[in-house]
């Protein structure tokens, strides 16, 4: 995409005013999206993102600049302009020589997205909405989409790092709407992977479409959830959004370095119950949140965040690492070249435990069984989080009883982690998009089923 010598010159120009570190992130991303509403394919779009982000450090300060004009003149000018933002004094600096390029080898793709016919996708989309619409007479509408992208990046810095990485991802979504008179409720599924089109051949998307419809029908027949503090059992897969919001964001150096996270200065302390071990692993093969190298060119790795309840480490990027006196953990990520990278999650999950889901339910007198979770959010400075329950049931006398709709779980991260009193053995990961200061990025969340002894449930009773 860009000549090695030109990159070296840009890195050097960036240090022309005394900066001590410079980095370039070159990105070309080709994306396709196609969607269906009911029985009609109604939207098809595709395109190419193409740009370069230049970053310069001077101590703990950084400046960032990005452009999609790749002419040598513009790149050098952009680098120099960014350098002047740090300091107006020009100075001599050494020539930069990059290492031999290292290429990411894992996360293999079999069927490249832009090498197969679009009509295969449209056939699959029709099958999905047909399955959802045909599931039950209560289903009034179904929408589905397939989005795939192939990202090609070059990352280089003044330390000599020179990386090339490819990240190819595909994800489909199916939404079903159930209707009774004027009432409407939804169900959806949205699996994805860092794979090529083979993902669509491997996954049973018809089963997922029927599952989306089943959730919508369950919800339209459900009464409102009760309110108050009670035990809640959160099932596996996307239930992992609990940890993502309650704790994950608070462990990113993004806020820890500023000491504006409730988990700052807590390494070595007990932050969760002893049965909780939580991991962020950027190396999971073909994982939705994985990559060979992070967006600063550091190799990704498996980071143990919490072990048996004790806080072991944070997710650290280069700049915040400087501020914290810690080495980067391969956690620097960004939505695109338009964003400065910062520490983010990749594939984050609670390790499987020893309990069985059946025992968790049978040992709960009265509570909520959150079978499927929706999204959530957190304020890392205060630890306050919230998540939506997508499919829930009332537990009474140790049995799952009537379905409930519209429940929200709220609380404070550090408190909730200590209230996890059972962890099951059915670990599963699920795909999501995470938004934060460096943009929207694909992340896996995950866990086995867990029981929280007491949490505030927002309902309508």
């Amino acid at each position, binding site marked *: 995409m860009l000549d090695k010598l030109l990159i070296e010159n840009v890195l050097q120009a960036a240090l022309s005013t005394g900066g001590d570190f410079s980095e370039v992130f070159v990105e070309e991303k080709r994306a396709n999206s196609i969607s269906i509403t009911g029985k009609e394919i109604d939207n098809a779009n595709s395109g190419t993102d193409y740009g370069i982000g230049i970053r310069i450090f001077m101590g703990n300060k950084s400046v960032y600049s990005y452009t999609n004009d790749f002419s040598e003149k513009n790149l050098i000018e952009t680098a120099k302009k960014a350098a002047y933002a740090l300091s107006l004094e020009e100075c001599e600096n050494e020539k930069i020589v990059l290492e031999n390029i290292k290429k990411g080898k894992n996360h293999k793709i079999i069927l490249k997205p832009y090498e197969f016919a679009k009509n295969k996708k449209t056939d699959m989309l029709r099958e999905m909405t047909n399955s959802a619409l045909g599931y039950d007479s209560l289903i009034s509408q179904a929408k589905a989409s397939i989005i795939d992208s192939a990202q090609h990046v070059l990352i280089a810095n003044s330390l000599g790092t020179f990386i090339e990485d490819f990240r190819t991802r595909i994800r489909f979504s199916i939404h079903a709407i159930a209707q009774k008179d004027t009432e409407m409720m939804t169900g959806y599924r949205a699996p994805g992977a860092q794979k090529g089109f083979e993902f669509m051949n491997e996954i049973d998307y018809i089963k997922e479409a029927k599952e989306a419809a089943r959730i919508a029908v369950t919800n339209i027949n459900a009464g409102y959830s009760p309110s108050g503090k009670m035990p809640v059992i959160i099932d596996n897969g996307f239930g992992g959004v609990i940890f993502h919001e309650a704790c994950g964001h608070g462990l990113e150096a993004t806020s820890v370095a500023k000491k*504006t996270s409730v988990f700052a200065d807590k390494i070595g302390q007990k932050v969760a119950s002893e049965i909780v071990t939580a991991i962020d692993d950027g190396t999971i093969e073909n994982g939705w949140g994985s990559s060979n190298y992070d967006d600063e060119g550091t190799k990704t790795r498996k980071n143990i965040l919490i072990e048996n309840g004790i806080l072991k480490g944070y997710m650290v990027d280069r700049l915040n690492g400087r501020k914290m006196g810690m080495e980067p953990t391969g956690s620097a990520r960004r939505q695109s070249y338009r964003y*400065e990278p910062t520490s983010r999650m990749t594939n984050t999950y609670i390790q499987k435990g020893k309990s069985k889901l059946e025992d968790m339910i049978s040992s709960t007198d009265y509570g909520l069984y959150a079978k499927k979770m929706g999204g959530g959010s957190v304020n890392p400075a205060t630890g306050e989080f919230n998540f939506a329950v997508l499919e829930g049931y009332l537990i009474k006398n140790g049995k799952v009883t009537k379905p409930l709709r519209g429940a929200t779980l709220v609380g404070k991260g550090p408190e909730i982690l200590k209230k996890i009193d059972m962890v099951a053995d059915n670990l599963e990961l699920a795909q999501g998009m995470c938004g934060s200061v460096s943009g929207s990025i694909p992340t896996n969340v995950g866990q086995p089923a867990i029981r929280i002894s007491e949490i505030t449930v927002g309902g309508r009773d």
Partner: protein
Amino acid sequence: MDRNKLYESILKKGSELGFEDLEVFFEEDKELSLGVFEGEVNEYSQSLTKGISIRGLLNEKMGYAYSEKVDEDTVFELLNQAMDNAKQIDSVDREFIFSGSKEYKEVKTYNPQLEKSEIEDKIKFLLETEKKALESDEKVYKANYTMYSQSRSYIEIYNSKGLRLFEKSNGAYAYLSLIIKDQDNFRTGSSFIVSRDFNDFSSDKLVEEALFKAKRKEGAKSTKSGKYDIVFENMAFASIIQAFMSAFYAESVQKGTSRLKGKKKVKIANDLITLVDDPYLDGAIASASFDKEGVCTKKKNIIEKGVLNNFLYNLKTAHKDGVETTGNANRGSFKSGVSTSGFNVYLQKGELEFSSMLDKIGNGMVITELQGLHAGLNPVSGDFSIMAQGYVFENGIYAYPVSDITVSANYFDILKSIELIANDLKFIMPSGEYTGSPSVYAGKLDISGE
């Protein structure tokens, strides 16, 4: 590179390829983002980017393609991709490339002064804001975000029906979030200013509001679950209105994802409710002369005295309903297809002072902040169950703050049950629409706490 020549070559090649009509949408953006933390600049980002999108009609079906490489070579590839995409569409709905409106109302969307003022002045403003925030109260722990962001956008629409439109717009916002230590808890308070005029950016204003919002949470804790008389403070209700805007798009109604289907000219809200979409609101950030299809915009009452007047339309959805477009076509950026959006949308304010409103109600709860709106709501059913903060009032006076609660209700039911509207109209940070609302009394709603 002469862009007009490039556009002509695209239209010519597109026609040769078989497109009935073709449109080029060009966008160039200049952005500046600054942030300070503990007396130092911790964010400094500048950029100049551009991109081009081609959309074309084949058998009245639209295919799209975009690229951030804007040159002769990518043009062929884009045309082929757009053609391939158009072939996939089998929707029976007609799509359109527009030849232009008879007239466009001139709207001020660009202030050159904003770009002329020095970056140094903006940094000084941020440093001053943070310093004042930290010194404003002994309980202030840190200012976790002190930010300024400025953008200038230039778009060109050039199509085979002869439409030639261009628009230059700019704007900026400043955002402050501070943290106070409240015994074992941290409380945050934030404020922002959105404007095209740098003179509007006042450190004192930002600090005063952020501190006030943080301090009124001091001592807040959860409360008994139950039904309370609920007042939504202006910004909190504005965020709810914004979250449910898609229910008013004809697109959602036609796709079967809006509860407002069949409700045109039906009373869907209390008499007091008038919801306005105003693309000409003076100084407002989302004002525009034409929508993203090039159709002239117009001011309209979406809801008028409780009656649903009209949905928001673009050319495709208007044709499907056999009505005129309302000029509400939107494109998130040149990378997205045409969808729908309002511009400056607000609930018309009432006559009542906020304090008089609390007096009239007597006892209840004011919801001041909502968190996790996107997760806790169902845009189709109107149900929401959202984490909230606020305060209880007794005999019309502030009594004590509450936190760690959720408020659960249905948006469409609330529109019917709003009994009182205050005169304190305020807008929130733009996200899609630029949305505003006065404080409203929504009747008895469910609060979950202990």
